[in-house]
Every structure is written in structure tokens, then in C-alpha cells.
């Protein structure tokens, strides 16, 4: 199988379904995985890091875009004018 075929396979609908399944398995297993040396409150809560990852991603995108549109993003010729 060629490299290109593998890439096409990863883009298929089936691959997407497997990925969603993996996310669910991630959360389920987090309920039973052994924990050790806990320093942080979030480490006691099952699924904490799943939620953290998702919220972090959404926050970063929305807040950054908001800050950017406050005036940080300018036309490419900004400094030449």
C-alpha cells in the first residue's frame, strides 16, 4: 500500500467513526485507571482532562480571535503607510 492510500484511508468516514469511538473509550477508561502521587485536584476527577482539553481548545480559539479583532490584526501594509 502506498503512502497516499494510507492518507486517503485516514480521511475516510470509517476512520472518523473510529476516532469518535476512541474519545468515548478515553473517558470510560479514565474511571478505572490507577492514579498515584496526586498533587492536583483535577487528577481525582474522572474525565477532568478530557473536559479540560476541549474547553482549552475552544477558549484559545475564541479569546484569541476576539483579541485579534480588537486591533492586533492589521493589513499587511500596515507598517508601510
Amino acid at each position, binding site marked *: 500500500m502506498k*503512502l497516499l492510500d494510507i492518507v486517503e484511508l485516514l480521511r475516510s468516514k470509517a476512520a472518523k467513526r473510529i476516532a469518535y469511538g476512541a474519545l468515548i473509550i478515553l473517558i470510560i477508561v479514565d474511571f478505572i485507571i490507577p492514579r498515584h502521587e496526586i498533587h492536583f485536584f483535577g*487528577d481525582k476527577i474522572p474525565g477532568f*482532562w478530557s473536559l479540560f*482539553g476541549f474547553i482549552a*481548545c475552544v477558549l484559545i480559539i475564541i479569546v484569541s480571535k476576539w483579541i485579534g479583532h480588537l*486591533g492586533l490584526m492589521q*493589513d499587511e501594509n500596515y507598517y508601510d503607510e
Partner: protein
Amino acid sequence: MMSEIFNIQFLHPSVLYILGGLFIPLFKGKVKQGYMLAVTLLAFFAVVVMPYGTYGIYEFLNWKLMFGEVDKLSKVFAYIFTIMGVIGVIYSIHVKNDGEHFSSFCYVGGSLGVTFAGDFLTLFLFWEMMAFSSVFLVWFRKSPASIDSGFRYLLWHVVGGLILLAGIIIQYSVSGDLSVQHLPFQGWWPTDLISLASFLIIIGFIVNAAVPPFGAWLPDAYPAATVTGAVFMSAFTTKTAVYALIRVCAGSEMLIVLGVVMAIYGVVYAVLENDARRLLAYHIISQVGYMVAGVGLGTPLAINGVVAHAFCHILYKSLLFMGTGSVLHVTGISKLTELGGLYKTMPRTMIYTVIGGLSISAFPLFSGFVSKSMTVTAFSEAHLTWAFMALMLASAGTFLHTGLKIPYFIWFGKDRGIKAQEPPLNMELAMIIGSLFCVGLGIFYKPLYALLPHTVHFEPYTAYHIWESLQVLLFTQLGFFLLLKNLWCEDTISLDTDWFPRKGAKVFIWLTKPLARIEYNFIGEIYEFIIQKPIMGAAKIFKVIDTVVVDGSLNGLGKLTLSMSRKMKNAQSGQIQHYAMYMVAGFIALIIIVMVLP
């Protein structure tokens, strides 16, 4: 006699790089390529065989210059710098411009010189040499934008260097000691002369570490550099600064705050950025933020984490710059809004870049996982929860941009039908070596841990740690695909702190215009009336004496001076590039003189 020569334990790798670089123009074609590779490999082996100790001590005026302070810390940085030298030279071996090769050799030599410097004077010498040689990697792009960008780059570094020098001078005048030593700075503001010295030194260092608000030079200059120059630049300047910070400023608490801010700052700007290489430049700032924060914490685990992270970072960040650089080399495009659909024509380059992306995101089995987590764990163990959370947030952002946004918008996204093919063989070879290191270090991390300055009691591959990382990363990925429409790239540039000097210069010129008019009209007339007229009167008398007595005797001398200056004027081109070149030549001459003279 022979045994003495072959018994040399310490051969300074900077000498190999700088002197070796001088001979590059003498060779041609394949011989030149072989020669350059041989020099870099020799420098690596010089580091491998180097035993711990202090070497290369020279008395210079009243000072003791120490060129070779070898301990665990300097050796591990020298390892990665020389490894990176080999990879960088392979990637750039096709470049025809000897000047560019020489610049990168001096640049690598400079950073190795800083690494082994035992006194601040030597450190400063090589510190400046890095700035003055690396600026050519920007200028050799030869576009008007990169010429401007190079000047700004140089200005930032000259200012930073002067602040560092001021700190060094105060340190010397207070303590009479120039040796590179631990001078941590506590608080936010200097209270006495001793703390002023360490304050100025820390500021000088963090300008090179690109800590905001002094970091705007990095995303300005790196994307403006040549394809191959940016690969070198991504590796050396900031990491040399991290090394200097570990040596001198470990445990300075302000670095924790600055580092965490930096980690987030880089991520925010990466969202806004449209140029692939500038996005990566902002992620250097973000990643160096972890290191700066770790240096501020200063515990053995944190310092180990910083060193390991710097080691891995150089490899995966250069890999990312090589991947996006290859796209720029082949297509001439680096803007994400103009790229897309390259997975059919450049699939292998995509694989290498994704490996770099997974490494920087600290995916299990990749190099970032065994290094970044050490620093982050140090914060969790120190119960600095806010810093820990912020760094985890920045980790999600890292994966979002470097692991997802860059590959998606270059290789997938909208197919724009760009004609492309895989890059030249040498570029691909360098990417393969980089990829092997990234995966290899992720799996066989024990040899790296053995190189770290403190004994390591850290195991990255525990079930929960793997699970924690996978959750953060894969749910970030979910967020990415759900918000893909909001993450569209916009064809803009982002204002950074260099707005102040750049716009400030314009305001300054605008302000001085009316001042110049007042000067011309008002002050000019007073000047003419009070000073010029009486002087002119006196001058007439002197002129008579002058023409009769003095001129005759001086005419001969004048003719000599004239003919001399006709020859000298060729050296004064008025181009700062030439002056910078003289400066580098001067540094090299100085180093040679100091080393050769008994």
C-alpha cells in the same frame, strides 16, 4: 611530540566551526559539501570525547579569559548544538552562497562559545558574535522586507547586548569577579548595586530568550530569513539564552511569571498568524516560555526538565522549520491562506512535519512527551497550581496549532492546485534524521536522561500520565474539527511590541520636523549674528598667515593623506552589512590572537 598532539583532550568546537568556516570558499562542489559535513561531525566528536574540567585559560590584560568550562550542563547543550549543526548543514548543503554558510558556521560557533564560556567577558564576546553573524541569515534572503527586518533584529540584539554588558561591568566593579556564576535575582526591581547587576544581566539574557515585551524580534526576523537560515536560527539564539539563564539566573522568581505569560502569549498569537513560519516562530516563544518558567522554579526536577526540553525542542522545532521551509522552497509560498491540498504532491514532507508536530505537542512515544512533562510535573509537585494549569492550557494550544492547524492548512484544507514535488534529497535526508531523533528520544529516553545535570527520578510512561496527555490532546483535536470554521486563517499581520519602536520612530521624525524649522529660522539667525560674523573676521586674518606659512609645509603631508584615504575609502561603503562583516572578522581575529599568543 606526536603523542602530545593526539592527547589533546579539549578541542574547542567553536574553533572548529569558526576557523573551519573560513576555508569553505576554498573548496568547490562535492568536496566543499564533504568538507562542511566533516567539520560539523568533527565538532560533535570533539564534544563526545571532552572530559569535565576547565580548559583554555588565557590571561588577557588583567582578566582571566576561560574558553572551556566543561561540566554536565555545558556538555549536554554542546551535544545538542553540535547535533543540530550537522542536521542544519545537511539541510542547507545545496546552498550556493558561501557567505551564508560562513554566517551559519560563525553563528553555531558563537553559541558553542557561550556554552563553554567560563567568564562573562568571553560569554559576551560570543554572545555578540551570534547576533552579528545570524543577522546575515536574514539579509541573505535579499528581499527588501528581510533587509528591514534584519536591521530591526540587529537593533534589538545590540540593545540587549549593551544591557548585558552594563550588568557585567557593574558585577565586575562590585565583586571584582568576572567568572560566570549563579547570580539569581529576587523580586521585580533592583534594590542595590549587586541586585542591579543581576537584574541587568537577566534582562540582557531574556532579550535573547524572546521574553515579551522584548521578544518581537523573533517572529519578525525568523520568517524573513532564508529557508535554511531559519532552521539554524530556530535552534540557537533562544536556547543559548536558556542555557545562560540556567547558569546564572536559576531560581529567579520573576522568570516563573514571565515564562508562563510567554507560553500563553505565543499560543494566542499563533491563532492569529497566517504565515506558517511566523506561526512556528510564535510557538518558539511559547515553548521557550516553559523553559524560562522552569528556570525560575529552579528545582532539580524543573532544571532537568528545562534541559531535556531544550534538547528535544531544538530537534522538533528545526524539523518543523525544515518541513514548512521545504514547502516554501518548492512552492515559494508560506501563507496558509494561499496553501492547501499538498498531501498528494508532498506526502513525505507532510509525515516529517507531522512527526515534528506530534513531538512539540508531547504525544506519547514522541520526544516532547518525555521532556515537557518533566517541567510541567515540577510545577504540579511545587503546588503552583495556576502555573501548572496555564502550562497545560498552552499544551493544548500547541497541539492545536503545530500539530493540527499547520498540517491541515498546508496539506489538506482547500486544494488550490499548487504545483509541487518533494524537496531536494539533502533537505529530505535532514528531515529524516530529525524525525528519527524525535521518535527515538520519545521511546529511548534513558540516554538523554543520563546526560541531564541532576540525577533523574522521573518516569514519563506511567499509565495515568499517558492517559492524561491523550485526553487533553485528543479532545483538543475534537475542538479543532468542531471549530474549524472559526479557525479560518485571515490574510493579516499581527501587531506586537515592536509596534512601539517601529511606529515610535515615525512619531519621532514627525515631532522633530517643526523643531527643525525653529532651529533653522530662529536659532540659526542668532547663531549667525553672535558667533559666525566675529569668527569670520578673525578667520580672514588667520587665512593670510595660513596660506603663507603653514600651507607650504603641509601640502606634502596633505597629498600623502589624500592618496591614503583614496585607498581607505573603499572600506567605508556606508553599508551596515559591511560594517557588521568587519565586526565579525574583528571578533575572529581577536579570538585567534588571544588563543595563539602565549
